[in-house]
């Protein structure tokens, strides 16, 4: 067995995902009782000790973030669960919420108690209607058990409406506030000024599920998996030319080759049967060659050595017949479409990239594309513009991936 089942419930789990029985079976009822008797400081020091980092893409140390919200001055504080999940090739939060919706919600409650928030929002993309319904059912269960409500933590679900940029944390705040979901300039950071200018803790679904399983067990248990640098497990969403696409939980440090080929993971390369490339981390990710894949593992240092990042955990696999210039063109159009238009490097840059690529620019004007990409990376306000050129830059750096162009 290469895969682990911690964030995802054991295969033998039979209780309904939103039931009181599940709450008990997963140890979450006990975790809530335990945590609500603890002080914010004690909870946060356990989170810090566990080494949990954000799973939404940026891998920011979670304990540090909680501590910052905890210490921030302000009567009113908020907790937000980010379930906007609109990154290309990313579907791990969907599967996690389908299979165990109580976990991430218990994480929200623990977070709210720790930082002193009375109100929380779960922001979910509008296309995940079934998942939203399941989340609402799970919330009802928590309400029926007395964990959710005006005298504990009031939790509301907010449905997005088809805007990739709304997943960026400050844009998401604007969306909840009923404004256009355009990112705000940082600083001030959300921990100091987030929703309605109050200190706000925003975390990805998977991060919050980690919090729930941590308190359903203990730090020792939590540290059983992972590497020295990166503790724990990660959900990877494998798609494209593998025999068994899907979401799998694996320990940090697992080799990319195993992720692709192990019989209980990707199951081997499909399509032509020959690995062509991997796009790791979504539309804003990095293309890797078969040689780079062979020597890399799922850890920040190992991937950093080949210029890549785990990002949201999207593992997109292409056999050797796929025209990656075509794929990059699709990505470029996506970013041009989704740029909020607030700042020039991104608004103009994403359009220019499309024009150049559509006119054979990867072949004929790689230097112009590179300079444009670097300018976008360095001068855009938010993560969208900063990361939009990364996949393109990675393709420019790897001419061997463009032989089908």
């Amino acid at each position: 067995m290469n895969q682990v089942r911690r964030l995802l419930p054991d295969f033998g789990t039979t209780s309904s995902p939103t039931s009181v029985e599940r709450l008990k079976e997963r140890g979450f009822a006990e975790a809530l009782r335990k945590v609500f008797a603890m002080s914010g400081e004690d909870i946060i020091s356990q989170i810090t000790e566990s080494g949990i980092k954000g799973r939404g893409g940026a891998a920011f140390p979670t304990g540090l973030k909680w501590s910052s919200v905890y210490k921030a001055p302000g009567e009113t504080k908020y907790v937000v669960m980010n379930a906007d999940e609109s990154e290309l090739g990313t579907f791990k939060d969907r599967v996690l919420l389908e299979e165990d919706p109580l976990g991430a919600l218990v994480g929200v409650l623990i977070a709210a108690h720790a930082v002193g928030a009375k109100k929380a929002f779960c922001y979910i993309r509008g296309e995940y209607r079934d998942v939203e319904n399941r989340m609402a059912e799970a919330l009802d269960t928590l309400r029926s058990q007395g964990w959710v409500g005006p005298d504990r933590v009031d939790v509301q679900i907010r449905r997005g409406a088809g805007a990739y940029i709304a997943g960026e944390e400050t844009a998401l705040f604007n969306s909840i506030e009923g404004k256009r979901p355009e990112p705000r300039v940082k600083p001030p950071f959300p921990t100091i000024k987030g929703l309605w200018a109050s200190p706000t803790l925003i975390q990805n679904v998977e991060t919050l599920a980690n919090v729930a399983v941590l308190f359903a067990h203990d730090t020792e248990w939590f540290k059983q998996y992972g590497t020295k640098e990166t503790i724990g497990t990660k959900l990877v969403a494998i798609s494209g030319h593998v025999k068994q696409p899907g979401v799998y939980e694996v320990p940090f440090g697992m080799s990319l080759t195993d992720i692709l080929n192990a019989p209980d993971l990707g199951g081997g390369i499909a399509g032509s049967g020959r690995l062509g490339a991997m796009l790791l981390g979504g539309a804003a990710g990095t293309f890797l060659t078969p040689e780079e894949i062979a020597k890399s593992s799922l850890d920040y240092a190992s991937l950093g050595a080949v210029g890549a990042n785990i990002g949201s955990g999207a593992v997109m696999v292409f056999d050797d017949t796929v025209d990656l210039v075509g794929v990059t063109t699709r990505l470029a159009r996506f970013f041009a479409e989704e740029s909020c238009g607030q700042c020039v490097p991104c608004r103009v840059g994403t359009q220019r990239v499309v024009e150049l690529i559509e006119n054979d620019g990867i072949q004929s004007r790689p230097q112009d594309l590179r300079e444009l990409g670097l300018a976008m990376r360095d001068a855009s306000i938010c993560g969208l513009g900063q990361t939009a050129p990364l996949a393109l830059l990675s393709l420019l750096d790897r001419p061997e991936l463009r032989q089908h162009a």
Partner: protein
Amino acid sequence: MDSENGTVSDAVKVLLHDIPRERGQLLPALWRVVEQYREITPELIGAVSESLNIPYAEVYGVASFYSLFDNPGGKMPVYVCTDVMCMLQGSENLKHAAESAAENGPVTIRESACLGQCDYAPAAWSGARVLRRATPEEIVSVVKEAGQ
């Protein structure tokens, strides 16, 4: 025209009666309107603006930002994912099949960016239902169903 406007604005008031008149309720309110009317027309923006007491331009600015609210004509939308992973699994065929089935009918076919169903590519979404590993036959029947 006046009386027509009156009707729409009254209907929207009823539709939104239990939504608090707060700026933070604008997105839920717009969702409710779209679920009822399938599109957001200038008239509906005016009605929401009146109902929640938010300036027209602000409501317009927010409503026009979101792609799921962008459905001029108000036909029933069926979304076909044409993003990278679904493209590899034949979303082009799916889209063509859907488009021919929808021609001149009450359903409109829209392309969607990644629907987050890449483990079941190619995918489509009809608002209520997600189609996983969708076949052209299946999408044709969904288009026909949605049109009834």
